[in-house]
């Protein structure tokens, strides 16, 4: 049985401009879990925002408003038709390096992932190696908040074979998100809030993979549905 959201007024005041066509997500800041409005589940609470004429679903018990944020605008790359502006840094193509392929994906058929040599499966090299996938993004000048979002999976080995995400440009090179993207065989959705720090700047988002020579647990780093979300 579904229940009407009882803090709707506060929600509407905070997010009056919600675009019904946007890929809005509820985000739990504590656990970094993300819940898409397009994926209602049995037992969900729901409410209808009459102004925007959309129905938003969220799991029961997720409505501490301070824990959630919706983004109105989204720039998305799903890799279905190409790299969408991504580039790969692969100095040693015989070792672990990024490719675009369809051996796995979060949605659709294609994503980018770490492969070895000329292989097209998401299996990394047993030799120590590293590789970067990156994209340059212009953050609009008038953003009030922003977030990088992507789907990922990586089994790897904690401490030795794992992914990392960095933001670079204009004199900075900073790790963002988790300390290691590892130990998840199933697709996850990650959202990394960046505020308005990069408004008006072109920044480079790096997806780095590294592995050592020892234990190998495939897949390595796989990325799908990259998004830049922002409000303005």
């Amino acid at each position, binding site marked *: 049985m579904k229940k009407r959201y009882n803090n709707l007024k506060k929600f509407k005041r905070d997010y009056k401009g919600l675009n019904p066509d946007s890929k809005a997500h509820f985000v739990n800041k504590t656990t970094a879990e993300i819940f898409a409005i397009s994926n209602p589940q049995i037992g969900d609470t729901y409410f209808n925002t009459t102004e925007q004429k959309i129905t938003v679903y969220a799991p029961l018990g997720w409505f501490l408003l301070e824990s959630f944020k919706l983004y109105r605008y989204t720039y998305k790359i799903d890799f279905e038709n190409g790299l969408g502006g991504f580039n790969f840094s692969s100095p040693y193509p015989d070792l672990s390096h990024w490719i675009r392929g369809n051996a796995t994906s979060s949605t659709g058929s294609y994503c980018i992932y770490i492969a070895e040599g000329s292989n097209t499966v998401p299996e990394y090299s047993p030799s120590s190696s590293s590789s970067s996938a990156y994209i340059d993004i212009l953050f609009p000048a008038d953003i009030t908040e922003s977030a990088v979002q992507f789907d990922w999976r990586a*089994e790897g*080995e*904690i*401490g*030795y074979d794992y992914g990392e995400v960095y933001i670079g440009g204009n004199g900075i090179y900073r790790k963002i998100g988790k300390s290691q993207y590892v*130990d*998840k*065989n*199933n697709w996850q959705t990650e959202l990394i809030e960046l505020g308005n720090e990069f408004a008006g700047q072109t920044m480079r988002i790096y997806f780095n993979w590294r592995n050592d020579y020892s234990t190998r647990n495939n897949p390595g780093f796989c990325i799908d549905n990259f998004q830049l979300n922002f409000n303005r």
Partner: protein
Amino acid sequence: MKKLVKIIATDSYELIEEIEFNSEIHIDRSNAILYWHLNNNIADYSYIRMRIETVMNDAGGFNALRSDEEKETALIYTKIVDIADAIPFYMSKGMSQEEAIKTYIGLRSIDITNSAKAYSDRAYSHEVRASILLYLGQSEGEILLDNIRTFREDIKSDSVLGTEYGNSREGLLDFINSTASYTDAGLKSFFDLSVPEEQAKHTALVNSLMNLIYWGYNKL
């Protein structure tokens, strides 16, 4: 010995018997210190420490661990790392000898607190009481429980298990195994070991108590 496995389908962790392992659905993480530590809610503190010690020793000891991250993790379970290995490690990270010793002692104190909690939960468990009463009967069992009261308190306060387990004074496990000054005493004295049936019961009780208090694990 149980395996720490990741269930591929759910990205969750479980302890399973070796015979249950199936590489189609599991990834074996039993030989990785960091996975034991990061999944330390899967068993009690002392069990996690024991398994990390096993992995460390299988790798060739503290200095043979693959990374500083593994070494720092092992040092959380301070008892398993010799101070002679710990101090040079800390000093290689920029600490003075005095700071290194202070850090080691601080961690060791926390380690003792954590293991005291885990071992005392085991020693005072109803399973231990039930095992004693099963093999000794009500009357003798109560005498034994009275005999080991101080030992159980030593576990609870300072994680003292016995001289054979790295402590400077005797403890419950010396009593159970009839070691240290209990060579011909302790639990042995509750059985007539010249009688095969009594001998078998003694062995069974020793094994049961060692499994419950030392080798076993308590799911939290």
